[in-house]
């Protein structure tokens, strides 16, 4: 197992190098001049040139790249212009917010998606199957920014069921003591039900907005996997032995069908983590996605680089975990490095 992990990591290295190079080139190609920003509103061209030299921006690209890699190796991701904070610090404090939102969105998508998938498989080609397909496809067709705005208007502004879209907690609550960075877990650990309630209320709408988008792939995989399992010999055998439909579905078919679903969930998670950029923007959610968008629009290099690096590393690690998990669940799979 350890050997496999090491070999997998080694195989991921070239991807990470590629990520570093592309990120660097992309951010350097961005319009906007950080030197002009730092020099202030009334700067002269000369003052800007001085600042450019101070930041090392007058060096040729390869030299700048080496500087950048050296900083990276020291764990220095630079300083954000817009918030004035070290990028590494901001990413680590914001990542739990994104992860918590994505996980909850995934939970929503998983429960709805699996239900729809199972229903569709059990009544294959019926109106129910078609309905499930249409509902799931509608979900994936909704632009998240549009869904978010609509949900806020209806559930906060018109009905007042949801709290104000003010981020992770309502304005008068203070964050629970930091353990995992997930407010839902941390508040429970601290036994603070009031904060838990506030955090839960805040996260529901953005999580649903995000989750709707992932219902379709999960429903699709569940349906396909269920159909395959239901058609297999052992289910027919179970049926033949007179077991009730319900028992067969829950105890045998679903359990076996969930295997590919679990691995899909992993992929969907990494996809959602990147896709929640717009959701975070709409809900003022202090995650890493909204951080990257703001930075990109302000031509703020360092956070964009840091964000993309983080996502690249996360992606590689996540894939590794899925591979290993798959091996644990299903020993028939042999990993090739």
């Amino acid at each position, binding site marked *: 197992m350890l050997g496999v992990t090491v070999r997998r990591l080694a195989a991921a290295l070239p991807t990470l190098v590629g990520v570093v190079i592309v990120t660097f080139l992309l951010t350097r190609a961005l319009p906007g001049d950080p030197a002009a920003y730092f020099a202030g509103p009334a700067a002269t*061209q000369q003052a800007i040139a001085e600042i450019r030299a101070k930041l090392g921006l007058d060096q040729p690209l390869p030299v700048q790249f080496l500087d950048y890699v050296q900083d990276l190796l020291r764990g220095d991701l630079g300083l954000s212009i817009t918030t004035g904070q070290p990028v590494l610090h901001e990413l680590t404090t914001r990542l739990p917010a994104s992860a918590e939102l994505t996980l909850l969105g995934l939970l929503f998508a998983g429960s709805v998606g699996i239900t729809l998938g199972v229903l569709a498989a059990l009544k294959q080609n019926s109106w129910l199957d078609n309905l499930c397909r249409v509902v799931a496809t509608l979900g994936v067709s909704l632009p998240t920014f549009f869904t978010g705005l609509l949900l806020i208007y209806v559930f906060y502004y018109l009905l007042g069921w949801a709290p104000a879209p003010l981020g992770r907690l309502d304005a008068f609550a203070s964050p629970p003591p930091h353990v995992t960075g997930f407010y839902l877990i941390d508040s429970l650990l601290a036994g603070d039900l009031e904060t838990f309630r506030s955090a839960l209320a805040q996260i529901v709408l953005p999580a649903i907005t995000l989750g709707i988008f992932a219902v379709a792939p999960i429903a699709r995989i569940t349906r396909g996997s269920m159909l395959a399992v239901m058609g297999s010999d052992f289910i027919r055998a179970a049926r033949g032995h007179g077991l009730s439909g319900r028992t067969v579905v829950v105890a045998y078919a679903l359990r076996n069908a969930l295997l590919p679903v679990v691995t899909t969930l992993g992929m969907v998670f990494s996809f959602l983590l990147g896709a929640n950029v717009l959701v975070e923007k709409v809900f003022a959610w202090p995650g890493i996605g909204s951080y990257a968008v703001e930075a990109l629009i302000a031509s703020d290099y360092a956070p964009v680089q840091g964000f993309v690096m983080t996502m690249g590393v996360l992606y590689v690690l996540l894939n590794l975990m899925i591979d290993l998990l798959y091996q644990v669940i299903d020993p028939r799979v042999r990993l090739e490095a």
Partner: protein
Amino acid sequence: MPHPKTDRRTLLKSGAGAAALSAVGIRNAEAQSRRETLLLISENPPNSTDIHGVGANRPAYEASWNLYDRLMTFGVKKDAAGNEMYDYNSLKPELAEEWNLTPTSVTFKLRRDAKFQDGTPVTAQDVKWSFDRAVTVGGFPTFQMRAGSLEKPEQFVAVDDHTFRIDFLRADKLTMPDLAVPVPVVINSGLAKRNATAQDPWAMDWLRSNPAGSGAYRLERWVPGQEMVFIRNEAWTQGPKPSLARVIWRIVPQSGNRRALLERGDADISFDLPPKDFQELQNARRLKIVSTPVENALQYIGMNCQKPPFNNVKVRQAVAFAVPYERIMEQALFGQGVPMFGGPADPAKIEWPQPGPFRTDLERAKALLTEAGYPNGFETKLSFALGLATINEPISLALAENLSRIGIRATINKVPGANWRNELLKKEMPLITNTFGGWLNYPDYFFYWAYHGQDAVFNTMSYKNPAMDALIDRSRFAASQGDYEAAVKGFVKLAWEDVPRIPLFQPYLNVAMQQSIQGYRYWFHRQLDYRTLSKTA
């Protein structure tokens, strides 16, 4: 528009049941503190608490304004609508108890009871260190100090612990008011020096997130990009005790969400709403809206005077007569500004801004364009800053539509974020819409930055005319009031004739707040002063 206003508390009780009921006890206990707590929402987060910091943004000025004190501050007066605003003509003590102004210097006596937030007394050495820092570190603070002829550390003298003197380089009417703007804050120099390094002698890194002032509010919590929480400094004696015990400042990027929060009573106050929302909220009367024309500020259309086709004055005049002024006021601004068009050709007053002599007249515009040698018009690009699109986009669309009627085909170019300043510096954009305002309320100050041939970044049109420069220089150091007025009227008239920038309107600073909020005061820096605000039950 009407909408059901649901009481959240009732809803919580009925809807969420037991969990909410158990919370009510806690909530009641909090009610008292909530009356003393202000929830402020805005679009952009502060990036620093140090106004001298590199790249400190406008929200950072607000943080600095409330966390630090200055030697002097401005008094208060009522504007035409009866709202409180700062009084430019009256300087009041803050850290200084009194001062003695002579033609060559000013000497301040510092309050003896003033203490920094860590308990150390405020001394003249702290003032000197802070002012030295402001004129040395470069960038915005140094620039702003220079505007008041405050340029060298040698000018600042700590006579004894409680006496501080500034020696003047020249007689400059802007020196005294420039000491009450947000830049010359007084920093706890002992604390700052302990956190300075050899590479960073002015502790720029440390002070960015660690305020070391004597201000009426302390920083309780700062989550960059999300919120800043202030609590009252109970030891503050530089003015009347502030009523608010706590200020929570949350960042809400979507303007629709900000409006919803205000309308539902969840947030207390905000500046950042589109003009349309302000107009509607004003009509709905449930929230209190205060609108103040921003002093010495002007939204304009700028044309690049160095490059064809706009180097031709006839072309510029043609554009000035093609602008759909009324439509812009209505559809882009929803009436939230003072029109700056349709005035007399000869300036009758020395106020700035004042209405220019232009009005929409497409026939005349077309004729001027033909006279200029462009009977079939031309292609051009109309640029504005993406971050200010709420107002600039509808202005640009309306303008482009009218320009197309006289044959000028303008494509619209939104320039993102930091790049805008860069593009302004390059002075290559042919046609822009933008706004400029000066903190110090003098027409000559505005013209010095925006029309003078020194070609500062704010002269976005790269307009150069020696006659203009002569008039501006004459007004800045005019010997008599009559001479001053003649010079001001002279350069305003020249600005109308050459029309490098077409005045559109003087923007309003709008603020929306709950009826329970009292004591709002307009400041030239357009940020919120927490000290005068209070909340009634």
